[in-house]
């Protein structure tokens, strides 16, 4: 049996209760919405991109503990990264939450706490919702992205 504490790690619970970068970004030049119609989770990710670099990033919205903590920790990890680095991190994060820790998990840093999600397949969408919105924002997509 998967252990609940693998999913609801202290760091995750703490971020879900006090999310970081939880605000609208006044200088945002890119933003995108992520929506999970299955559970009603809804986030907006704001980006201030200069050239290839993410100068600032924030988010707002509502969702479960996993989706909120994931959004919060995503914003922390991506500040100062390039677009390419952000996309690569999303790829690695997606692998982590779908198939568990692997050789490249080291690069994810603190985000590795989400490895427990792989034991709870129905929660993968929660963990990746903000990341899908990020991806859409980086691509300059106007339509809200849906997990369905």
């Amino acid at each position: 049996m998967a252990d609940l504490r693998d999913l609801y790690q202290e760091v995750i619970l703490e971020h879900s209760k006090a999310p970081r970068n939880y605000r609208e970004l006044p200088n945002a030049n890119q933003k995108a919405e992520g929506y999970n119609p299955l559970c009603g989770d809804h986030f907006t990710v704001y980006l201030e991109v200069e050239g290839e670099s993410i100068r600032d990033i924030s988010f707002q919205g509502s969702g479960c503990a996993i989706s909120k903590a994931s959004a919060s920790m995503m914003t922390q990890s991506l500040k100062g990264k390039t677009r390419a680095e952000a996309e690569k991190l999303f790829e690695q994060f997606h692998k982590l939450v779908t198939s568990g820790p692997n050789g490249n998990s080291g690069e994810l840093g603190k985000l590795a706490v989400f490895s427990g999600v792989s034991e709870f397949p129905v929660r993968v969408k929660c963990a990746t919702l903000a990341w899908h919105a990020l991806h859409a924002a980086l691509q300059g997509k106007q339509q809200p992205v849906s997990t369905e």
Partner: protein
Amino acid sequence: MTSVPKRWPRLQEVRRRDGIFNVEALRADFPILRRQVHGKPLVYLDNAATAQKPQTVIDTLSRYYEQENANIHRGVHYLSERATEEYEAARKTIQHFLNAADASEIIFVRGATEGINLVAQTYGRANVGRGDEVLISAMEHHSNIVPWQILCEEKGAKLRVIPINDSGELIWEEFEKLLGSRTKIVAVTHVSNALGTINPVRRIVQQAHRANVPVLVDGAQSVPHLEVDVQALDCDFFVFSGHKLYGPTGIGILYGKSALLDAMPPYQGGGDMISSVTFEKTIYNKLPYKFEAGTPHIAGGIGLGCAIGYLNGVGFESVERHEHGLLEYATQAVTEIPGLRVVGTAAEKAGVLSFVMEGIHPHDIGTILDQQGIAIRTGHHCAQPVMQRFGIPATARASFALYNTREEVDALVSGLRKVREVFA
């Protein structure tokens, strides 16, 4: 052999002299209740989504495919006759279950959703025009909203919505105000799937009929819990799904008064719904076949008849009493959990306990309960306008069936305490 066995040996034990049935004996009829989930005994409290099936329904489905499978209404051979006989016997069982005046008023469909779509696309398209109104309530399932929206959009008609109060009850005065000369049909749920509210459908029908407006009742959540008599309700259409009534998925019922059904255009064209076809003209079959194009879910229909036979054997009176007791017990028990708020506190309720917990998203509640073997539903329950009405994104919902016990409610309560611990 008939599709609806006359006796279940265990029912003698299930029905006790005091009228309260022996739930432990009854649980033995449902094989899935013996299994474990995540190493814990299954506590199945997601009955409003779908109910579990008794062994007799499961056996009826296999027996049909093993011994009787053939197409109905067309073969002269033995098996086709047998299959037709069983299928039509199920229709009669369902007729008696709803107390419909005639078996031809019982139309097999895929489920409540298809039943509503059928009425919207036939009665609706023939009778609703530009500037007309369709009246629904604020507590409808998406399946009793969207088919009417599609119709209204096509016809230039307007969808009007009866509001509900903070307890989740219809506001009667608003209904009276909204019911007007432009109203062409009223479509309301009998029991709300998200709140558990029992609507006063008999009164609604009386009021609507005074204005010569027909009423469709969505009975998906009521037939498992309340005895339904469509003639006493006097509703014009009534729909329900078999799978919430301990029967198979993919089968459901539309009841309609024969005068209305007769006047309605057909829904889908195809085999079985015709009496003769030429390229110039097709003459439609009589009721109920006019609305049953194509080979239906034969095993499903027979299985549904069997499920109703099982329910009749248990006795509706004891089902109602048992479930009502469980809901009261559960409502009382969860109020002792700090930070928990029940959503839907109507005076008349059936089957459903919806709630939210302060600072904890329903999705997280669902996962933590699941790890303890407890199955509940979390989310918007296909009733997003209800969530909007209460200003919440989602709820957690425990819903009860005749096989649930107070011990299972206790397991739910201790599960919810565990949720609080994780989020402490």
